[in-house]
């Protein structure tokens, strides 16, 4: 009997040891592969800025438990309020995978850790955006993250570990309007090696709430002026809370994203940056409340008739020949044209001579 009990005990131990090891390993694996917990935010270095001056915005990350390899930072802002100057990487993301590019109302860069053994972890600054204020605003103007912003984790449960983004806002005061025309950029503070400020994580908004909320009865309205489609650029307009930041996406072969700000009366309007060809399009408008941080979305479809739109029209003006150009085209045209005219004239003359 004693031997039997010993045998049973031995068998139980023999079986339970690998089971315990297996489950322990599973739990360890779960702990190693953390859930997505990374947030991004953007902070200006000042709370208000005069027209014509440049603002430096810090793009901050808080990785939570995640190990982040690379981050695609994609920013949107009102092109009538801001002009992007540059975007580059910062201390916590020592590598640039895709160079910073700035456009009308957009700025993007992909930054990364030095290598897989030194991933981006913790809180700190990963990029710096410089934008110039263009026109005064009655309410704070927002710079927000676009939906294609991406934080790639290493060995995590999902590849994109980004769970939320926090836009930043700043008020643009009257300032010196002449600074705009002269392009004289005023002195701007240069980032220094001071310790990084912590990211305000508790206030981040889930991405879904920013871009996928259903339309509700609210101040947001959307209209599309089908009579204003000359050149394939319909007038997209409506109302929203005064000072709200509106992200308008016109879905075509290449979606066009435009950001505008509602004026003090709550009115807003824009047109596509590139003329649209004939066809049916969907426009989605998301309004971000200037103070509450809540957002709402509306969408609508419209059609552009045949014969209008297509490629952008470059209107010729009566200006002098630009300072740049190529003499090659002129020479080719001259030679070809001269040859044709001379040949044509001779042919005509001979024919005339023959019949006379």
């Amino acid at each position: 009997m004693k031997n039997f009990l010993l045998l049973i005990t031995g068998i139980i131990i023999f079986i339970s040891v690998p089971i315990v090891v297996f489950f322990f390993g599973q739990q360890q694996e779960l702990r190693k592969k953390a859930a997505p917990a990374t947030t991004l935010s953007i902070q200006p270095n000042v709370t208000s800025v005069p027209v014509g001056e440049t603002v430096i915005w810090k793009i901050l990350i808080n990785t939570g438990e995640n190990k982040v390899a690379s981050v695609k930072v994609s920013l949107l802002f009102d092109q009538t309020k801001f002009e992007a100057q540059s975007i580059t990487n910062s201390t916590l993301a020592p590598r640039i995978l895709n160079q910073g590019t700035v456009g009308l109302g957009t700025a993007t860069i992909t930054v990364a850790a030095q290598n897989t053994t030194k991933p981006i972890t913790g809180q700190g600054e990963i990029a710096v955006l410089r934008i110039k204020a263009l026109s005064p605003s009655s309410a704070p103007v927002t710079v927000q993250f676009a939906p294609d912003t991406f934080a790639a984790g290493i060995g995590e449960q999902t590849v994109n570990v980004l769970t939320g983004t926090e836009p930043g806002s700043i008020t643009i005061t009257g300032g010196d309007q002449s600074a705009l025309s002269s392009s004289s950029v005023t002195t701007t503070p240069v980032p220094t090696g001071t310790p990084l400020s912590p990211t305000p994580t508790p206030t981040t908004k889930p991405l879904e709430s920013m871009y996928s909320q259903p339309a509700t009865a609210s101040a947001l309205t959307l209209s599309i002026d089908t009579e204003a489609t000359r050149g394939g650029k319909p007038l997209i307009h409506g109302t929203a809370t005064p000072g709200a930041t509106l992200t308008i996406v016109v879905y075509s072969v290449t979606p066009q994203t435009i950001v505008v700000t509602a004026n003090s009366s709550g009115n807003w309007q824009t047109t596509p940056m590139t003329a649209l060809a004939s066809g049916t399009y969907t426009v989605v408008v998301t309004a971000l409340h200037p103070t509450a941080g809540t957002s709402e979305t509306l969408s609508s479809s419209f059609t552009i008739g045949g014969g209008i739109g297509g490629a952008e029209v470059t209107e010729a003006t009566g200006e002098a020949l630009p300072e740049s150009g190529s003499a090659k085209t002129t020479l080719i045209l001259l030679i070809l044209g001269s040859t044709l005219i001379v040949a044509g004239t001779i042919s005509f003359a001979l024919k005339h001579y023959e019949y006379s």
Partner: protein
Amino acid sequence: MNILERNAPQKITSLISFLAALVFLPLLLFAAYQSVTLITRAVGTPANIVVDTKAVLEPIKTDFYHAFAQGGEESEDMIAPVLTEVKGLRPKFIRIDHLYDYYSVVQGSGGGMSFDFSRLDAAVNTILASGAKPVLALSYMPASIAQGGSVINPPNDWNDWATVVEKTIQHYSGKGEKNLGGVYYEVWNEPDLASFGSWKLSGDKNYLTLYKYAADGAKRVQNANWFYFGGPATTGLYKNWIMALASSGSRVDFFSWHSYLPDPKRYATDQENFITWMLPYPWHTLKPTLITEFGFTGDKSTLYNSTYAAAYTAAVIRQLISGGASYIFSFELKDGPGQTNGWGLVGHQNAGKKLKPRYHVYAFIDQMAGSRLQVTGEGTWVTGFASVKDKIIRLLLVNFDRSGSHVETVPIKFTNLDPGNYTVRQHFLFGTDTKTQQTIPDGVFEQKLYMSTQTVAILELTKTE
């Protein structure tokens, strides 16, 4: 006898032609003038450069373009006769291919295989003597193990191919042998090209199989220094090839491809595409990317003998100066014998080792080392970047036009300068190098720079007090 000879006295024909030309030429000139104006505006934007001298961005790398590839123009150590000239390029990496069909490395097959690295060693030693590290394209299939004896075919036994790769890496990276650190081993060269086997991603000539067995060989290497193992070295950046390799499960330490693109801006697009494709594989985004051959055309061209090639190279470097590939390899170091339109930076020794314009562009751009400054207003043809180092501010501009005839007068403005006296140096590659003294009381310095066809220039501001 035709109608002209029959009916038209030569004098009358000439007179009519002359009168017609006289009447219509002014009209034609006017039309051409207007056409040129419209065409110029329609296809591009002139530059209007503004450098913010206080907006300091990231450090500039000046090593990534000091990489060069040598094609198989001759089945011997081609670099040795031009070693002095190659040293002048201060190369970081030099790539060679044809390891197994030019240097008689492998004899026999299966258990009877033997290796003789002496001829290849000579070529590698020359690379080392130039100050560079070798990038060895593991190519092509040794005839003794290849199906039908063709060097672009799969082997009769894949294990023989694995052994060839193992022995090669062991020989150069093994601590008990050549003991080289940081060597790049690239699996094959342009596998998608018919000349090099027209390999696919499936079927009998599957590149992934070629790669897998090469990786198996690399895995068997013992007691070696760190080395990089990768590919696919295709003729361009192809998503299906890159993704297939990334998801193959084989060891991939770097990704490589070739770029023969007439538009320098495509290099930035390629880089963006690569990173976008790799985002689902975050660990891959951090690995080196090598453009192991680049140029404006893969065909031989007399333009490689001209400033066109120099301006093109500068324009490409501008596109990759931030967030670009780890290394870009100019193709190629030396012309083959008898070539008058070769890709070489240096002419063949039989033709006097002539240094072509492109040879000089690398050292010229090296002057731009420092921290990058914010530049806005680049145009369609004139692009550039700025830097600051030891308080000296430099702006590099390149006027590159694919059609080869664009000229431009570029307005340039430096803002946020410290007020004071400055020495302004205007230095053209292959052109003038002038210095003037300027007092800049308000921190803004403006000037216009005429850039003729295919030119590269550096504008340098040094505060004198």
